[in-house]
């Protein structure tokens, strides 16, 4: 994985010093809260309902054991002994004191980490495929391209006061495990045939997003030669910075600009700017990508057994559910579920983080990933070691065999933490996963992605859930709208609302009814989403409201 050189380290250290200085000026009254707010936000520091929240960047979701151990230490030293992994592969701490923030940033800098641009109206942490570098189906490892973008987007002088936040995802497979087309810019690294056996380039999608106006990003360029990758991104951002709406914060995301101009006109403007920027020369030297890519060379995989002993049914179930095919046939990627039935999605205690860090060091070439589904991942586990890994996870309460099942719920922090929320998300997620685990239905239903947001900002991705739940405030009472048919994957689609909302008990019953309809109607091999797409909304509505 990527290691800082002296330059990268100096940039992060400079940022810590700058933040200390800003905090000092705030305390001395030289900065008003209005002036300080965007500065602290650009260092990931939010003011929540009860305390400050600090969001730490985990670039493209990759980290090593030393870094996860530091995250555990921070959880203990400055928070309440746990952290929360997010849908953009970051971690956030919910109980931070402003006075400690600069010290935490300094601790992070010791292990090549930071909270730069995890908030604010700037280019946010670049996310990627959590199976990057491991998946059998990838064209190349997307992370060198994401790292190139990380450097380009860090402290970008022109794009620090954009109309609104800006999220970029980079993948390199036909499979989309990063909700790529629901980002402001989505990039897919591709190869096209040429005389020398394949030229690498980037497909650009622009104007996707969730929030109150969900949009799927249209393709705006199907091949940008890789030597122009950063230049094209710069063109996309410049057009947005100049023409994105600033009169209304709810219409300020790039999706509104692309929608109002039309994808063709936005693309025309980008292409014009791109041609201009090519003449200016903003691309990093070609050798830089090669330098970065060398950091992501494959570890030294060795041959070994390709199957496991399935005599223990709990282990066999976990292997079936929570492992993913690796490009080397003696390895798999192993998902560490942070979704125990009845638990808080994405939360991990300091102790659990240390267990995972130890396993990564021992069994996964010291590499770890944070998944956009709020789980952790050991990317490279020898099949021969799987039982040992599972046993250790099981002992730490981290072996729930539920990846992509209805228990693997994405949920925002909701009204328990967030000052924007209208309704609680976490207790609902806890009750639903508990209910399905108790009734044994989880495994019967199979793949079913349930996503819960506590307000229309959609941090819980409800638009992209096979089943989505949106919490709203209805005359002072929490009310939950149900929607069906969304997907964040390569078959991306936006969920549709079933009808009138439900109270908390009602929406749990509604989720069960919806799975009843599926089980009664499914054809061989169909996932919930496939059945919904085949039979449509009516049978579900009938069951819910008929």
């Amino acid at each position, binding site marked *: 994985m990527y290691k800082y050189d002296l330059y990268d380290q100096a940039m992060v250290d400079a940022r810590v010093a700058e933040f200390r200085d800003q905090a000092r*000026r705030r305390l001395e009254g030289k900065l008003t809260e209005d002036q300080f707010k965007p500065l602290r936000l650009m260092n990931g520091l939010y003011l929540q309902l009860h305390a400050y929240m600090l969001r730490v960047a985990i670039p493209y979701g990759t980290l090593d054991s030393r870094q996860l151990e530091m995250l555990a230490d921070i959880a203990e030293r400055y928070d309440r002994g746990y952290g929360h992994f997010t849908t953009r592969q970051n971690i956030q701490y919910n109980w931070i004191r402003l006075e400690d923030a600069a010290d935490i940033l300094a601790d992070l800098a010791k292990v090549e980490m930071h909270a730069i641009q995890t908030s604010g109206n700037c280019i946010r942490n670049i996310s990627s495929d959590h199976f990057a570098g491991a998946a059998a189906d990838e064209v190349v490892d997307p992370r060198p391209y994401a790292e190139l973008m990380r450097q380009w987007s860090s402290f970008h002088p022109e794009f620090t*006061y954009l109309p609104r936040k800006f999220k970029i995802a980079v993948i390199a497979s036909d499979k989309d495990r990063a909700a790529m087309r629901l980002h402001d810019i989505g990039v897919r690294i591709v190869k096209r045939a040429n005389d020398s056996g394949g030229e690498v380039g980037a497909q650009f999608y622009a104007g996707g997003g969730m929030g109150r106006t969900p949009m799927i990003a249209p393709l705006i360029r199907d091949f940008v030669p890789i030597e122009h990758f950063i230049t094209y991104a710069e063109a996309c951002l410049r057009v947005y910075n100049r023409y994105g709406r600033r009169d209304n914060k709810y219409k300020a995301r790039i999706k509104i600009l692309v929608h109002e101009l039309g994808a063709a006109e936005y693309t025309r403007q980008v292409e014009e700017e791109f041609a201009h920027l090519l003449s*200016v020369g903003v691309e990093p030297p070609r050798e830089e990508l090669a330098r970065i890519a060398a950091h992501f060379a494959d570890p030294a995989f060795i041959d070994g057994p390709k199957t496991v002993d399935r005599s223990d049914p709990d282990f066999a179930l976990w292997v079936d559910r929570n492992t993913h095919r690796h490009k080397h046939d003696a390895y798999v990627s192993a998902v560490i579920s942070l979704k125990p039935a009845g638990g808080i999605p994405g939360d991990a205690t300091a102790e659990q983080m240390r267990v995972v860090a130890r396993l990564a060091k021992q069994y996964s070439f010291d590499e770890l990933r944070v998944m956009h589904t709020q789980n952790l991942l050991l990317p490279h586990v020898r099949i021969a070691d799987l039982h040992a890994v599972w046993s250790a996870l099981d002992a730490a309460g981290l072996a729930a065999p539920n990846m992509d099942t209805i228990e693997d719920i994405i949920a925002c922090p909701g009204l328990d933490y967030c000052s924007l929320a209208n309704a609680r998300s976490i207790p609902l997620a806890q009750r639903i996963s508990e209910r399905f685990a108790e009734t044994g239905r989880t495994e019967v239903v199979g793949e079913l992605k349930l996503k819960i947001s506590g307000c229309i900002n959609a941090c819980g991705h409800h638009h992209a859930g096979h089943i989505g739940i949106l919490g709203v405030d209805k005359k002072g009472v929490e009310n939950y709208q149900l929607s069906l048919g969304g997907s964040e994957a390569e078959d991306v689609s936006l969920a549709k609302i079933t009808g009138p909302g439900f109270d908390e008990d009602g929406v749990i019953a509604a989720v069960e009814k919806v799975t009843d309809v599926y089980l009664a109607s499914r054809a061989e091999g169909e996932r919930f989403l496939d059945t919904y797409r085949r039979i449509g909304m009516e049978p579900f509505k009938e069951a819910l409201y008929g």
Partner: protein
Amino acid sequence: MAEDIGTSPDEVQFRFREDEIVDHGTVTVDACCDQTNATAVRIEPGDDARLLLPFLDRLALVEINFPAFNDGRGYSAARILREAGYTGELRAVGDVGVDQLSHMRRCGFDSFAPDKRLDEEDAARAFATWANVYQRAADARRTIADKRHEA
């Protein structure tokens, strides 16, 4: 003659140029495009900086106004002018704070007339925030990647 809407030389707090400071009447972008003798112009956030490109030779001062520091359109306007070869004074005016200085400098601003005078020491530190930079921009600084790969 259009009304002078610009800042005066004594409002300029920081200037990174050796040439004589100009004290000409500053006009709007519209007026500048209509008026063949204007030598100083002020760009507002909604103005298209590219309208000025035909007139760069005769301009000695371009002011870019930041009515609110968090409206970043002026950063693009500045780079666009520099990329087109503008070499005259580029002055950031309005709600310009310490924490905007280093990025503004990188985008090509070489003069600053903040609404509220800034603490000199804080500003000096801010201008020097970044010993190295990741991106190519309007200031022709060699980037970190350039340095990594120099022969």
